[in-house]
């Protein structure tokens, strides 16, 4: 890297594609709306968390988490923010898979206003938030479960 006026060349490091390219703590945000997902991700980043945003199954075929391969970003996450809209069965399948396949990963779930018995059972042990929760509320919930992350600058930053 070189600053204005200097000219020192540095070779870039080749990074192989990996599901998580950043260190812990990592938060996976499952959110179908791109702008909403980015807003939550931004709030979490500024709170010190590495983030990944997944729009969930719609438009992307079956969620790998419910398939045989599983989902590396979910398995390797320290916490998952679930906001896929759990009125829909396809979203509940993902939540069910998260509960059974990643039992140690804490979940923050944005729940709809009306919760039926099936969903109530699924939500046991999850941290619940209203479906219209703001990014700040989500950050508060994440910090409550994971604790505030230690500030660490990436090398060269």
């Amino acid at each position, binding site marked *: *890297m*070189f*600053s*204005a*006026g200097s*000219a020192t*060349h*540095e*070779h*870039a*490091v*080749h*990074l*192989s*594609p*990996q*599901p*998580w*390219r*950043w*260190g812990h703590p990592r938060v996976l*945000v499952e959110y179908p709306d791109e702008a909403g*997902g*980015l807003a939550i*991700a*931004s709030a979490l*980043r*500024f709170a*010190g*968390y*590495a*983030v*990944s*945003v*997944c729009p969930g199954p719609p438009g992307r075929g079956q969620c790998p988490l419910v398939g045989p391969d599983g989902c590396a*970003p979910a398995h390797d996450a320290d916490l998952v923010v679930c906001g896929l809209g759990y009125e829909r069965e396809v979203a509940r399948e993902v939540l069910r898979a998260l509960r059974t396949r990643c039992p140690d990963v804490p979940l923050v779930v944005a729940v709809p206003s009306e919760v039926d018995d099936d969903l109530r059972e699924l939500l046991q042990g999850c941290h619940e938030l209203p479906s219209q929760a703001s990014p700040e509320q989500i950050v508060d919930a994440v910090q409550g479960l994971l604790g505030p*992350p230690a500030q*660490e*600058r*990436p*090398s*060269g*930053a």
Partner: protein
Amino acid sequence: MRSPFQSEPEAFRSVLAVLLALLAIVLAAVLGPAWLALAVLAVMLVGLVIRATQLRIRKQRLDRPLKSAPPHVGSAADRRVLVVANDTLGELALLGEVERLASVPHTHVLMLAPALVSSGARLTGAVDGPVDQARVRLAAVLDRVGQGLDIAGDISEAEPLQAVEDAFATFAPDEVIVCTRRKRTRSGLEPRLAALVRERFAVPVRHLVFDPGLGAREPDRETEARYRREFDDLFARKSTLVTLAGVGILASLVMSMAALVRSGESASPQPVVSQAAATAPVSAVIALKIIPSSKPGPDGKVHDAFTKTEFAVSVGRPVQLRIDNTDSQPHSITAPEAGVNITAMPGIHTYTMLVTTPGRFQWFCVYPCDSEANGWAMRHAGYMSGYITAS
């Protein structure tokens, strides 16, 4: 495509693989029939295509877009902006935008110039030229930006998307601005780079498109989608061409193999000349020899000769010829009008002669022989020529 010579172990493995492949082809050519080498080459090409397809599928699976980003670095007020540009670095509008961004308090700007390396140059490692070009362009911009602003620069020889990923690891931007031309050029960043960055990183991504004289504009989503389609079309056309070339190479290999197999078959001994002989009973067995330089001629020299040159056969009745060719090369009894063409290979072999038309037919040897007398024996009955009488 990554160069297979990027590191010493990769280069060693690549050279070893090429040497082993060449060895296998040479061994096949030396030890087997000629077509075997082509077959080995074809199998290797097919294997290479399958492996390349596997790697591409694996890469696509690993590259499945999932937006991610590292934690923000610095205080909550700090803002880190990554500007990705190369061929547009000289644009005044870009300079103005960078200065505007950097003039906001607590804003840090990193200008990243990925070297525009072609696939071929990347494969061979000849990246110095594009890297130097990026360095010169970036240095010129950094010299012009206002003093006191927090603007740094970096160049990378990696592919542009990889370079952005590297910058995320070292700079942790909160926003990315990708600067391209409206149309894709050979020496410019891909206009669809912005969409790829947006697909992979969970930060706001702006795309600035520069038209000479028109300044910078941000394309709408439809235009972004068109950039993507244009690239996909180009990629599809390239893939079709590569596939067609591959199919052409394989087809020519298969056709060459078939031609070699067929020529091998026609060069092999032909014990049966007249196919009808297979069903008719043999009327006689005649033994004869072919002896080079054995029979004196009227010119006082000794000539190549068959020990028997007159054959009397019954029409439609096969005759077996037990020929002892003592020469090291093949000879023949060829009488086109009688439908006879027996190639006598060196050694003792039995052949069948069948004539279906009555008459007296001259035969001759079609292989060059009696070379010391300029082929004299090939033109004279009683030597390497004679008659077949069918009645």
